[in-house]
């Protein structure tokens, strides 16, 4: 078959149209499933930061299980600004921390999720977003009612080196945060330092970094500081109550 330029152009155009149609159909058909996954993953992370949803692996229907747990424990969620005033009309679940952290501090919407434990005590969960070595690091940190002691933390990353920086998503790293405090005795905000083996530990305010994952560890430290400092006014206000 002689294949002239007209044929080539027609062939290429036809191919592009068909491929575009196939891909957009797939995208539209799969979107609801993907969104459900993303929402469930977000709920799971929020719940995991306060040690809930521990039986997700045994759950028959992951989606329903997470929805039930979320309904049961996350009793309240709201958005504040950097002065600690509650912002009306913004859904905390819909706030994307990655975008908020790009805005100037005054314009940030800062979500807080309140978890009410079975014994009636509350934990306050804050979403975080920062930068690791190769890409973003993110997670949720839960504070106890004193707005100081860390109840739990969940960290994840997009593309840190497996076995090195990626270990921030591991249990052994995250367990260290429990019971650490973000304010010192004088109620100054100190955040949590992620230190190298050579550095002296700071009692109550530091965790050991990942060896071989120094930049990712620093990324976590910076993320904690950059995110939590936005909430400091609110925390101090609430502590007075």
């Amino acid at each position, binding site marked *: 078959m002689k*294949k002239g330029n007209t*044929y080539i152009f027609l*062939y290429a155009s036809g*191919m*592009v149209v068909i491929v575009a149609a196939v*891909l957009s159909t*797939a995208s539209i058909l799969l979107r609801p499933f993907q969104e459900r996954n*993303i929402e469930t993953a977000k709920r799971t992370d929020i719940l995991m930061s306060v040690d809930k949803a521990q039986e997700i692996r045994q759950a028959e229907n992951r989606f329903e299980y997470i929805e039930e747990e979320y309904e049961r424990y996350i009793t309240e969620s709201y958005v504040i600004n950097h002065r600690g005033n509650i912002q009306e009309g913004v859904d905390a679940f819909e706030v994307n921390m990655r975008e908020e952290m790009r805005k100037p501090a005054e314009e940030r919407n800062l979500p807080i999720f309140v978890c009410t434990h079975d014994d009636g005590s509350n934990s306050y969960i804050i979403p975080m977003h920062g930068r690791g070595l190769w890409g973003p690091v993110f997670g949720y940190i839960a504070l106890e009612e004193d707005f100081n002691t860390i109840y739990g933390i969940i960290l994840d990353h997009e593309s840190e080196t497996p076995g090195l920086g990626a270990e921030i998503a591991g249990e052994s790293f995250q367990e260290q945060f429990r019971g650490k405090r973000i304010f010192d005795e004088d109620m100054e905000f100190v955040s949590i330092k992620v230190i190298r083996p050579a550095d002296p530990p700071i009692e109550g305010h530091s965790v050991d970094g990942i060896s071989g994952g120094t930049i990712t560890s620093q990324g976590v430290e910076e993320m904690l500081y950059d995110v939590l400092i936005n909430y400091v006014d609110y925390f101090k206000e609430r502590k007075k109550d």
Partner: protein
Amino acid sequence: MSQKEQNEKEPLFSPKHIKLLTNPLDDDNPITVLVLGICSALAVTVMLQPAVVMTLSVVCVMGLANLIVSLLRNTIPPRIRIIVQLVVIASLVILVDQVLKAFLYDVSRQLSVFVGLIITNCIIMGRLEAFALANKPWPSFLDGVGNAAGYGIILIIVAFLRELLGSGTVYGYPVIEYLGLYEFGYEDNGFMILPPMALITVGVIIWVQRSRNRKLIETN
């Protein structure tokens, strides 16, 4: 016998067809013999699970890409054939990525960018050029699946060794800790986690393969 079966000259799994499937596992292995697709072999072999999912994804993409290009082989204008192949591969990879995001969300989070990088896997393009453009759909499909499996088997061997020696786990299970080797002073070799060790491991596999399979040794 139906017309269709009469037209078929060979049965679906004739010895020749089986060879298409099994040859790439050893004699024509894309990684150890053709030395293609090395770049992604470095990236996804630190842990076993991503390597396994990557293998399955590449099997899907390569089998289907070979099949589609072979079906289109008589219509593709030779002058734009590379672009056509690229479009076929890219579309399939996007589909795989979308499906993983919809139904295997956790794994897709783990693999992150590597699924997209299947597009740049030179084995796929190489097989399309070398085989699918000149052969019928069924043998092309087998050739694609065979080569992807050959790629995958090396990926899985390398990932197994790197995860075991580098992190002390197999598929996430802490076997070394379970065996209690740490108590005897054993330490994980952090070097295994770094990309150069994937190359060295592949090199060792090539060495073992050639000492076992003499006909692979080039005579200069």
